[in-house]
């Protein structure tokens, strides 16, 4: 670790991993509710469990992004973070807000209260005071990191990363605008939801991936930057108007069906480019970096993002197909592999890289870390296939034959059982990952046993 303030990232990544565990355990709970629908129906209704599952995901991913930025910006800008205190204060605000949201959801406190009660929109359920806290924290972060970059060396990686993070914060402002017209409500809602994960988050992903490739493979910065610019251009070109693939059936004009179909079909290109980038860099790279786990997560991230976000996204993006598959388990299959591949794996990759450095050790427990990759990636891939088959059956029964929703759900039971099984693998993998990072023992490969 070259700069003392990089250590801020340790706290951020720790909080992120804690929330990660909560997220996947909650996933297991609601996965079981699919198998046995009355499970916890009084204590923790399904919609609340799902809210915790999705909200915790988004919060820990963003916390991880912030951590990654605090780790890599000093190294890229070649100077300490502008204000270390501000960075910790920002984390405290985020933790308080997160806890507030969790408690409000779980016990349904202050129902209907405009400031304290949970709001109704999916994924943006946070009470207003939490939303305001998020904005304050984001502003503190942007100020802190932007000041650091402005005073230091400017690289393509930090420029793209900052562009992505500024976009993330500015687009969140649409969460405060909630028109009473349902079609308009959804239209602006996607400004946050779609333009995050299929827009600015891709910039964050590409820049962090580029940083990892630079460090792990030793390829020239110039080469990495060229790839980075092409990927970012392709992401924005396809992703912005690709928003149209959410406007097929919400009451927006019909021409969105063509805009959405055409542009969102191209969204696969940046993900393909990121996969190609990662593998070409490794092939070209001369460096044999000891941190094999970080490399495995990086390559896994690029590959699973291509399949989860790219291929599984294209699967149901054309409006002629989506007419039948909309809102079925096909969507759930895509959502799980896309988030896991693109953003979960990315966070776990940068953590695998940064944690040993911040704790002043050689990369340790790599075998366990790599085992956790295969456990999580295997579980998530299996889950994606079961949900895809479930979605195919559901689409045919419900949308083609016209059977009732609950009748169809009963027929899908066997898929939900298998999905629960794969969920267990993911949770075990997550626990193993945290253990591998947090409980350092000696290196797995001993440096030669001392003679007795």
């Amino acid at each position, binding site marked *: 670790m070259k700069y003392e303030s990089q250590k801020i990232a340790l706290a951020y990544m720790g909080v992120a991993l804690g929330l990660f565990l909560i997220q996947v355990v909650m996933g297991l709970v609601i996965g079981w509710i699919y198998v046995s629908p009355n499970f916890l129906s009084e204590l923790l209704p399904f919609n609340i469990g799902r809210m915790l599952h999705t909200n915790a995901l988004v919060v820990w991913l963003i916390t991880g992004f912030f951590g990654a930025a605090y780790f890599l910006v000093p190294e890229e800008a070649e100077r300490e973070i502008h204000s270390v205190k501000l960075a910790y204060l920002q984390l405290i605000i985020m933790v308080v807000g997160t806890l507030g949201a969790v408690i409000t959801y779980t016990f349904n406190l202050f129902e209907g209260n405009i400031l304290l009660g949970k709001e109704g929109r999916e994924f943006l359920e946070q009470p207003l005071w939490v939303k305001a806290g998020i904005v304050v924290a984001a502003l503190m972060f942007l100020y802190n990191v932007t000041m650091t970059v402005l005073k230091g060396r400017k690289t393509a990686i930090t420029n793209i990363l900052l562009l992505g993070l500024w976009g993330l914060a500015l687009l969140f402002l649409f969460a405060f605008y909630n028109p009473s017209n349902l079609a308009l409500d959804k239209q602006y809602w996607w400004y946050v939801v779609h333009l995050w994960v299929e827009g600015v988050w891709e910039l964050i992903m590409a820049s962090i991936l580029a940083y990892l490739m630079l460090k792990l493979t030793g390829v020239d910065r*110039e080469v990495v930057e060229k790839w980075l610019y*092409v990927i970012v251009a*392709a992401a924005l070109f*396809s992703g912005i108007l690709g928003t149209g693939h959410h406007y097929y059936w919400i009451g927006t004009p019909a021409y969105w069906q063509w805009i959405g179909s*055409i542009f969102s079909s*191209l969204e696969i290109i940046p993900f393909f480019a990121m996969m190609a980038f990662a593998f070409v860099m490794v092939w070209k790279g001369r460096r044999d970096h000891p941190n094999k786990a970080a490399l495995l997560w990086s390559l896994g991230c690029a590959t699973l993002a291509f399949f989860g976000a790219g291929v599984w996204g294209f699967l149901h993006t054309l409006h002629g197909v989506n007419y039948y598959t909309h809102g079925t388990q096909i969507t759930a299959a895509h959502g799980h592999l896309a988030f896991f591949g693109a953003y979960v794996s990315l966070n776990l990759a940068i953590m695998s890289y940064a944690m040993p450095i911040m704790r002043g050790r050689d990369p340790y427990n790599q075998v366990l870390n790599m085992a956790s990759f295969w456990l999580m990636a295997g579980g998530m891939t299996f889950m994606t296939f079961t949900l895809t088959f479930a979605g195919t059956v559901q689409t045919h029964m419900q949308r083609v034959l016209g059977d009732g929703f609950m009748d169809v759900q009963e027929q899908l039971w066997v898929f939900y059982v298998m999905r629960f099984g794969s969920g267990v693998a993911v949770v075990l993998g997550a626990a193993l990952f945290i253990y591998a990072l947090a409980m350092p023992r000696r290196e797995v490969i001993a440096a030669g046993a001392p003679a007795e």
Partner: protein
Amino acid sequence: MTDTTPEDHPLEQLPGDLMMWVLIVSELLVFGAGLAAFLGVRITDPAGFASAQDHLHRAAAGINTLVLVTSGFFAALAVRASEHGRIARARLWLVAASLLGVVFLVIKAFEYLEKARQGIGIDTDTFFTFYYLMTGFHAAHVVAGIFILGLVGIRCTPRTVEVGAAFWHMVDLVWVLLFPAIYLLR
């Protein structure tokens, strides 16, 4: 691969800038997909498409084709002038190319107004949805192209003019594909 230096990498031999080519290929993909979808939907209703097409102003679009192709020629002359170090002359050709771009937009606006007067809009039928989407997107690119030509006129070097002209030729090319497919094909 191991012997190639960055200079003789095929990407380095592209005229202009790599990013412009990324943009051009992306644009061609979008317009190509739009055209393919248009022709695909046309198969399902050839008679409806033919009668809708009769509302279009073929002569205006024909004139616009001449205007835009000539404009592309002027942009090419600007590239040649800049390569010979004649910056003032290059700027003059760029202005001429841009002015023809404006003429194209005026004629296009006349077409749109005429449609509006007949009560035809983007939601009238599938033919006109495609008509407005594709020609509208294209017109937006003409606007962007005029802006880019102005920009490379201000920072006038052989390289920038080449990059700007590449974009302008793409706008030209797309129109040459749209015109027969939308206005003429029976």
